[in-house]
């Protein structure tokens, strides 16, 4: 991993921390004043956090500039497609959970994640995914008395 890239990651992390701090400060300052008289209102503590985060973010940026090779954390080697696949699985589940139900949504999430880890046996994955999500559905609804979206299988359980 080239040194410059590590520095860039670290610097961009510092900038993000700094900007979260700034966003908190701006966001909290725009809150309307409360009518209730208090020694310390709802703004003081968030402002302290904002100040601390800005200081920490700035320090990280400065450190990334003066950092010696030995101090740099390694950025590990990574593939992008698996990240997209896990993301896709999660987003599909968010969309499908209350429309298609837990079993279908979870089966899709399962298949997407298994793909992300390089699984090549689709048939095995589908069987495991269905068994797992049906068992989890039955266990959590019938066994533990929780509610999960049934989707098209409303009458089955």
């Amino acid at each position, binding site marked *: 991993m080239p040194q410059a890239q590590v520095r860039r990651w670290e610097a961009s992390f510092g900038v993000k921390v700094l900007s979260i701090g700034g966003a908190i400060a701006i966001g909290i300052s725009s809150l309307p004043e409360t009518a209730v008289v208090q020694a*310390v209102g709802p703004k003081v503590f968030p402002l302290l956090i904002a100040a601390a*985060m800005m200081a920490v973010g700035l320090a990280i940026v400065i450190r990334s500039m003066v950092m010696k090779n030995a101090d740099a954390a390694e950025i590990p080697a990574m593939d992008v497609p698996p990240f997209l696949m*896990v993301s896709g699985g*999660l987003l599909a589940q968010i969309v499908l959970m209350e429309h298609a139900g837990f079993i279908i949504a979870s089966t899709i*999430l399962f298949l997407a994640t298994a793909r992300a880890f390089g699984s090549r046996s689709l048939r095995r994955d589908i069987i495991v995914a269905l068994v797992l999500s049906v068992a989890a559905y039955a266990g959590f609804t019938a066994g533990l008395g929780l509610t999960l979206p049934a989707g098209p299988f409303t009458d089955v359980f």
Partner: protein
Amino acid sequence: MDTFSSLMHGFSVALTPLNLLWSLIGVTLGTAVGVLPGIGPALTVALLLPVTFNLDPTGSMIMFAGIYYGGMYGGSTTSILINTPGESATIVTALEGNKMARAGRGAAALATAAVGSFVAGTVGTVALTFLAPTMVKVALSFGPAEYFALMVLAFVAVTAVLGQSVLKGAAALGVGLALGLIGIDMQSGQARFTFGVPELLDGIDVVVVAVGLFAVGETMFMAVRHRFETEQMEAIKGSLWMSREDWKRSWKPWFRGSAIGFPLGALPAGGAEIGTFLSYLTEKKLSKKPEEFGNGAIEGVAGPEAANNASAAGTLVPLLSLGLPTTATAAILIAAFQQFGLNPGPQLFATQPDLVWGLIASLYIGNFMLLVLNLPLVGMWVRLLVIPKPLLYAGIMVFATLGTYTLNNSVVDLVLLYGIGVLGFFLRVIDVPLAPAVIGLILGPMAEQQFRRALSISQGDGSVFFTHPLSLCLLLLAAALLIGPPLWRLIRGRPEPKHAFHGED
């Protein structure tokens, strides 16, 4: 009631057949989930939270005690047989334990870890039993200023102690504190950072954050890395019973590890890392065969494993007596209390003695169950380790989203889970410790409450934190922890001999 009769009363609660059953289910589930590679105790507790939603508070807490100890126990099995510890505190166990497994002494390593966990868990629970009531008496004299100072100390400790970089720890803590701001401000009733989303008014659940960071972020990280990692599972070789020599070499490290681990866990200083590491160094120093360290020394498993478990018991002292979580796992245990409207702290001992003492008694019982169950069942747990990675992580994702959804039956939590998971992924890539974020989320709102209470009592006079002697001491301690280590390095790093500021080295 004195401590002993309280404890006996606790046993009378915990030993009812139903509560024994909850304890048994707890240790079994805790071990099974804790064994799974990539799942540490914090995630184990978070993922199993929904299982207890419909129990009564006492039964649920007893089950949690079992899950907590079981999860700790399962993690050590994983780090010995595969070199991927589920949490940083078992890194040291993996150091020697995995070497032992490779050298065909895996069974002895598992056995010394199991018995060591039992010894340390018991020592730690006894210490907890007698220390907690004392701490409660101390805690009753705490005002808001003292509580706030204590929380500042905890903030500093988790950032300065966890991970290699104080700045990164502080950034993670800041992220947790920032997420903790979201929701209705209890004192003024004003909504902060809710962006008009009604589901955010109650704030972000700590379970969502813990599962997002430790399950979703971790899964994403493992997914992008899976082509580059090869890991090897070591088969258990050798007799499950330790040889006479193993016993001889193990028993002292067990007790030394317990003695090191418990106080470090009980201090509001966060985490078992230091304890396990100190224990490792101690054993290396005291060993007659230091050359074995690094090649599978049994002392290097026995000591740190004991320290880890004693520290887990120690963590419960500030948790139960002060309501102060000092580890990510403790932060989720607080959430488990809060789902029943209970707040751990000195009052809980007075208002819910059945629950508190039943919980403490069940720690003894769970610990014993773990020893009895796990020595013979270790072969079964090990089978969980051979689950192919695609199925393992796919399963983790399904249960992560399931657990999150059942919190409020709301898709908003799934959206948050995804966002926090992506955040956790990037933090993991640049090696930012995640535990401070979880602790910050739960401690931040508590700290704010105490901060404002203290200032409203003093009518806005900020000197209140420095004029109360106890509060001042805690803040000075926090400052020392923060600037001490870098100052120390600066002084030590200087070669000039005229600086007569040498430590005892």
